[in-house]
């Protein structure tokens, strides 16, 4: 099935054209993609576009903008939580968003029916605070220059610079971006599924047998792996390390709110069970002379790890929204890496693969029980 289509237009233009034609021809009823908001395009947010003109030159949509205001996996879950749309919807998402989406499908939080998934090889996104007041626009030329060379711009989020899963899996159509030197004039679409093929039918382009795993991609994996090790090495561990790291946590639980995998409508830590009676506080006070109010910073983080780390896709939203600038994503990725290795699991790899905690082998992990 996998085939690729070389189109003699720039990547951005190709993407816009593709989406516009999908909407115009009625092949999809809407497109979920990034778009500018506000009268002067001050903000960038995901939108469900139904009007094809949004994808024309100067239109509101900016599907390849290096920014992630929300994890689109979570958004698609919200869109399809109560059932798939009756007509196809296309979504332009980043590889980590796609992984989150696959995990959410496994968690019965969304449906992939009638969803056309378009993704691209990803060179990362800028931190949220770089996107305030159009400050990001100035960085765009540098960003795309780096993409062409298969590099990552230095101002891109550390999480992204350390991400080794930047080649999307399970996308119906993949737009090759990373390391494509002639990005401005030519674009390769990799059509990975029959669904994808049906949607690109009629698109003008030369078919080719180009592989996604190009040389620059391989090189990027190595670079990012190195950076990842560097980040992991900087994580403060041990209880004292965690207390130092989370000492400044303000308990807002924003990390949980934006986490695509944390889908529970009511988190244990926001529930009545986590509210304490005066007797609890008095008991703790008696025992150790003092305690934090509200309590549960390290407990919350460990609890969240226990609940979601096997499915953590390393999208970095948690770090991005943290008002206290705690490097959550690095810590969670480090924990997730070993937890996922334990079960030889990679979140988002395959929709049919069970989440490790929902399945088991008869003979395994014998050393755990003593």
């Amino acid at each position, binding site marked *: 099935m996998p085939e690729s289509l070389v189109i003699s237009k720039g990547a951005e233009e190709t993407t816009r054209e593709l989406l516009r034609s999908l909407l115009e021809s009625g092949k999809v009823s809407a497109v979920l993609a990034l778009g500018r908001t506000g009268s002067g395009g001050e903000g960038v947010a995901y939108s469900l576009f139904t009007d094809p003109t949004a994808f024309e030159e100067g239109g509101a949509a900016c599907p390849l903008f290096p920014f992630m205001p929300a994890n689109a996996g979570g958004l698609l879950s919200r869109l399809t939580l109560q059932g798939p749309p009756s007509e196809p*919807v296309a979504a332009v998402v980043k590889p980590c968003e796609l992984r989150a989406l696959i995990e959410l499908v496994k968690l019965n939080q969304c449906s992939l029916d009638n969803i056309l998934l378009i993704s691209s090889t990803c060179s990362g996104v800028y931190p949220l605070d770089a996107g305030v007041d159009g400050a990001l626009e100035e960085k765009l030329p540098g960003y795309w220059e780096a993409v062409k060379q298969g590099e990552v711009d230095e101002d891109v989020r550390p999480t992204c610079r350390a991400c080794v899963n930047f080649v999307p899996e399970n996308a119906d159509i993949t737009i090759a971006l990373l390391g494509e030197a002639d990005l401005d004039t030519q674009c390769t679409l990799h059509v990975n599924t029959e669904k994808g093929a049906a949607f690109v039918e009629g698109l003008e382009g030369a078919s080719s047998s180009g592989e996604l795993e190009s040389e620059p991609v391989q090189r990027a994996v190595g670079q990012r792996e190195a950076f990842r090790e560097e980040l992991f090495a900087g994580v403060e561990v041990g209880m004292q390390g965690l207390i130092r790291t989370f000492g*400044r946590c303000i308990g807002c639980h924003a990390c949980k709110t934006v986490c695509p995998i944390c889908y529970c409508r009511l988190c244990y830590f926001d529930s009545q069970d986590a509210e*304490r009676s005066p007797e609890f506080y008095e008991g703790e006070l008696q025992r150790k*002379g003092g305690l934090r109010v509200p309590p549960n910073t390290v407990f919350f983080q460990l609890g969240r790890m226990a609940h979601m780390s096997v499915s953590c896709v390393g999208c970095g939203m948690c770090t991005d929204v943290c008002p206290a600038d705690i490097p959550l994503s690095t810590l969670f990725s480090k924990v997730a890496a070993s937890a996922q290795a334990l079960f030889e699991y990679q979140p988002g790899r395959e929709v049919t693969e069970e989440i490790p905690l929902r399945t088991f082998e008869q003979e395994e992990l014998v050393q755990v029980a003593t």
Partner: protein
Amino acid sequence: MSEKSAARSSGATLKAEGGVAAALVGWLKEALEKKVFDALLIPVEVPAGDSFAYLLLQDPAILDKASPLPPVMPVQGGKAISRLTMRGNGSKRVAAVVRPCEARAAIELSKLKQAHLDDVCLITLDCPGVLPLSDYIGDPAAGAARFAEAAAEGDRSPMRPTCQMCNHFSLLGSDLHVGTLGADGTILIVPGSSKGERVLEGMGMPVDAALDDWSARVEEAEQAQTERRRQAHADLRETVAGAENLLDVFSSCINCHNCQRVCPVCYCRQCYFESAALKLPPENYLARAGRKGALRFSPDTLLFHIGRASHMALSCVSCGACEDACPMDIPVGQVFSLMADRAQEALGYVAGRSLEDALPLVDYEMDELHQVEQPYVEIYCKQEVQDA
């Protein structure tokens, strides 16, 4: 319940040669040792030294790292008090050292039945404002120096925008207020309720110092701040009023609802805007998108902000916690303080002023607000008929 003391006409004095914070911590330590109260809720520097956290403590030794007036407000004290007392009063008398906006939030939460203040003695200080959280965490040492300098000079420019225009930085509602404004070697401790009076009594401190000088200073500063607030709100209104401006202001909102989560008075366990009420089948979203050509997703950004205001603006204490927690630096605290001031004015209420004022949406008058009733012009349709 706090019975009002006969006008705050006098206070006790405390020598503060070694600085206000040290003197106050010393005083609190003594109070703990004398068992004037059993426990203390106070901001304490965290182990990494990059922020502060509220600790409930009874061991006076822990107080060494305490700061009655830290340079940041990571957790709104009202919220901390609510978490502590939401299930009841407990058996300990707790003194909570908080900022005036935090005390106001605690008072609102008490009225909203989310806090029990019977055994809590609210101690507030004249507040110079706080630095934005992200500024401080980036470089705590520089932040602390900047804060100390600005606080000493009464300069609010490095503080958060909501603090820059705060006009309720003193007194209002607390049981004990520590007057430090313009303090020169001596600070005043002013009882605001019988609970506060009992504390001073227990400490053996005579309440005999005249407040005139300090009151005059506070009043002067309050007037200046009120003017500043009026001006800031007028300027702000220019930039937010109208559909276009408003949507520009919220254009970068990522719908994380963190403003709601850190808001002390947004106490609902399940927010309406995160509930199933707004989680709809895909056809709904697609139809809405179809009508407008596109639909921001997640949807309902503006509905969330205005709706949230409709739920909490009357209890909003303008503490600015929302703005501090916004990952997109939206001036949400300022916009909410503007909405809150005008809404509270319309309904004759000041959030956190006193435990006695009833919440405006719980209470009503028979004869009021006739301006919102649309007068009936009886001849309206008859006129139409004649015109036709």
